């Protein structure tokens, strides 16, 4: 369905004149919406291509989460994409996003390593182009180059790992490998490389060095997409692969994950303390959040997968809300630093409140979804007995509260002689923000969402 959507957009590009390019925006959003509706109405089950492509209710849920996230990103990007500098590339933006989304879908539905790799590449390449979308900004080009070189290197590593696994087990299909997987030297080497490839996509420490610069340089819409959809899909696939393919080596990869989680949370937090630019700030916060999610992966089976996906749902709404406010302010005034936000509450009440809500959700404060997400992740880790890791995680959560409160302090407490003046956002942005806020509240309180996710995990 997504392929059809992409084709429709290409056709529209050819047919519509330059001036009316803006019409592509609602068409794209509508198409994505229809795709989602079809996915819910006709959930697919089964395998095709000889088992390379798997569809079941778990994957449907993941794809739905990604679709929702993409719709929100598209809503958020409306004003930016219609700005003068980007006007001639509107359709390209949507084609690239759809292409990337198709790649993510293939990656999520992969039944073997080749499909996984294919999906991963298809997902990454368009995003690299998207990162460089702001043609007239040097940082954007820099972001694009950094992303493409780092991605290429990491996917090469992953391919190496896949090769080793193939050499040992004689097959690339997940099911076959799972049956014969033994923790011997070659397999462990392969697993480590594959883990590194994923760790890059999820921006775990020490594979995180690209994240800050890319998040800062890329346009805000692309950053939102990267931080939520790309990370989310990679996390799901990592969890799936670790549980179902490398299941027999779980003692070994658990140790790896504990170390990675500890490093990621701590270093992500420590660096975030010093940031002045909102986008870099949110980048390091994303890195730290990825560390927290690893705690969920450390849980076992149903609980582990369920809590990871639940947190991702909450994370989608939270992160996109935060980035949308940043985008709104960036579109209106071009300002990106925390100190520019001083006194924002006086002039733009709703935006301040929404950002505050999103930051509280990221910090894990009730009654919003982030609280439940974080606590369930800790529960998953505790269920396997990792109490000291949970202790370190909660200490990190406390440290993170400090930097999440910095923008809150800027907006509500600091005084400013020249605060950002009041501006109205367009309808798309408003819908995006309203949906995000609703999502933040509902995901936490309505237990049915968590129950359903858990039941399909």
């Amino acid at each position, binding site marked *: 369905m997504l392929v059809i959507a992409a084709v429709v957009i290409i056709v529209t590009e050819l047919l519509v004149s330059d001036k009316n390019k803006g019409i592509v925006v609602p068409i794209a959003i509508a198409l994505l919406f229809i795709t989602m509706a079809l996915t819910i109405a006709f959930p697919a089950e089964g395998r095709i291509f000889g088992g390379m492509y798997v569809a079941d209710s778990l994957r449907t849920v993941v794809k739905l989460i990604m679709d929702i996230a993409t719709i929100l990103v598209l809503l958020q990007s409306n004003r930016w994409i219609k700005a003068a500098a980007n006007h001639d590339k509107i359709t390209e933006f949507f084609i690239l996003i759809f292409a990337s989304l198709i790649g993510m879908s293939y990656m999520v539905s992969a039944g073997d390593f080749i499909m996984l790799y294919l999906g991963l590449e298809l997902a990454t390449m368009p995003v690299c182009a998207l990162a460089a979308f702001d043609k007239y900004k040097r940082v954007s080009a820099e972001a694009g180059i950094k992303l493409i070189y780092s991605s290429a290197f990491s996917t090469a590593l992953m391919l190496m790992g896949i090769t080793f696994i193939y050499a040992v087990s004689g097959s690339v299909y997940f099911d076959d490998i799972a049956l014969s997987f033994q923790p011997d030297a070659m397999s462990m080497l392969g697993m480590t490389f594959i883990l590194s490839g994923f760790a890059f996509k999820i921006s775990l420490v020490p594979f995180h060095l690209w994240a800050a610069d890319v998040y800062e340089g890329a346009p805000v819409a692309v950053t939102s997409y990267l931080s939520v959809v790309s990370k989310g899909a990679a996390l799901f696939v990592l969890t799936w692969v670790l549980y179902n393919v490398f299941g027999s080596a779980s003692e070994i990869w658990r140790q790896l994950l504990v170390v990675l989680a500890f490093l990621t949370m701590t270093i992500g937090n420590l660096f975030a303390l010093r940031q002045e630019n909102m986008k870099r700030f949110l980048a390091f916060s994303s890195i730290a959040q990825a560390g927290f999610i690893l705690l969920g992966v450390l849980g076992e089976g149903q609980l582990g997968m369920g809590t990871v996906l639940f947190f991702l749902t909450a994370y989608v709404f939270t992160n996109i809300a935060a980035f949308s406010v940043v985008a709104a302010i960036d579109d209106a005034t071009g300002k990106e630093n925390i100190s520019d936000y001083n006194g924002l509450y006086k002039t733009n009440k709703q935006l301040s409140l929404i950002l505050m809500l999103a930051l*509280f959700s990221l910090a894990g*404060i*009730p*009654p919003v979804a982030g*609280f439940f997400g974080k*606590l*369930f992740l*800790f*529960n998953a880790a*505790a*269920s396997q*007995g990792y*109490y000291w890791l*949970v*202790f370190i995680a*909660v*200490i990190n*959560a*406390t440290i993170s*509260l*400090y930097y999440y*409160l910095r923008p*809150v*302090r800027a907006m*509500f*407490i600091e005084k400013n002689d020249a605060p950002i003046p009041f501006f109205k956002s367009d309808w798309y942005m408003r819908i995006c923000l309203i949906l995000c806020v609703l999502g933040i509240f509902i995901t936490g309180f309505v*237990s049915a969402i*968590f*129950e359903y996710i*858990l*039941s399909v995990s």
Partner: protein
Amino acid sequence: MNILHLLIIIPLLTTVSVLCVKSMKAVRWATAVGMFFQLLTAITVLLVYMVIRQSGDTSEMVLMDTYNWYPSLNITYAIGVDGISCAMILLTAIVMFAGVFASWEIEYLQKEFFVSLIILATGVFGFFISLDIFTMFLYYELAVIPMYILIGIWGTGRKEYSAMKLTLMLMGGSALIIVALFGIYHSSGAPEPTFNLLELGKYPMSEAAQRFFFPFAFLGFGVLGALFPFHTWSPDGHASAPTAVSMLHAGVLMKLGGYGIFRVAMYLMPQAAQEQAWIFIVLTSISVVYGAFGAIWQKDLKYINAYSSVSHCGLVIFGLLMLNQTAMDGAILQMISHGLMTALFFALIGMIYSRTHTRQVFEMGGLMKVIPFLAVVYMIAGFASLGLPGLSGFAAEMTIFVGAFQHVDLFHRIATIFAISAIVVTAVYILRVVGTLLLGPVKNEAFMQLKDARWYERLSTLLLLVSVAGVGIYPQWLYQLIFDSLAPIAQKLAAAL
């Protein structure tokens, strides 16, 4: 519908109405009316509870209601009360009601102030009625964040620093509680893991698990109870906070710590409590004396009171750690007594400050001549603080020390004597402040023009004063109420010896 739900619904409705009205006067009255209804509900809950007990119901918790929230994780929205909860709810309602009138003059971002204050109170009420430790923790966290906003925006002095320090340290305490929470959940002896407090109480945890998690739970809640050495957020936090926030925080929030300790830590981990009590007794004794000495050093009224709160709250935890029914009863009585007293103090200090614009004790003097009503109330509050018989402080402290002396071993006796010595120190700083501030010559000529208390100030201070005196003159009904509710946990602690 269960009356306990009203305790959450009324504040939420009040918030909505505050957000809807237009004028500043309407905002104040909306909050006042809302909190008045909350007070009525709290009194009703207490009366209903007493009726239920009179009719012979001896179950551990009454007025219970349970809704399945997350069935897969066994998280329920379970509520219920016993005598102690009822008393604490009443305390919160009284302090909150008085606090609204103490904030009558706030004008900057007035709506946001009252909304934040009510959300804070909602968290506290929810904490007291919850019987499921996950929901308890949710309400507990809900009460922490509005503190940052309230102190940061409407505070005085080094407000940003104090607000951040307070919030981070309290979150640090929560961090410890989270570890204990999941530890309890996963290591309980129950057939399937549950967060429900009563279920967990039926199935004791293994001794090893108890030993590991009791410090986490105790210290986590202890941070909020200003346990030495985690008390450092308290002086700056209380001093920088606006009046009503200090009242609510010192009066009620710090009691959440003590309540959490006995409701969660001691109830679920009695063996570990018996074994490790001595370590924490050392800490609390230091807390009691350190707070008192700290108060002597201070020259700012609010700092004096903040350190005094550290001392009295330390006494609460001290009483709890004695692990017998008498001392624990005294501890909870002290929670209530000190809650009312310190709320009264902060309210008075706020009123004095708004008149004299200084909080330095030595810059003021002879206020008895100028603002007699406030001065007399302040004097009585001071006497309550140092434990004058007839006022609530005496009843509470006496009970704690009687209970403490029931331990005949040398360690407990020494610790108790050490803690009792703080009474003398308390007397020193209280009498010094009363003498310098209220009696003697008027230091500043400009003070002769000051106006005495207005009607809303009289209302809030008299309400608190009457409560303090009431508990002091006839504490028996409260004592018995608490004593009966302590029976389950006292039995568990005795069995764990």
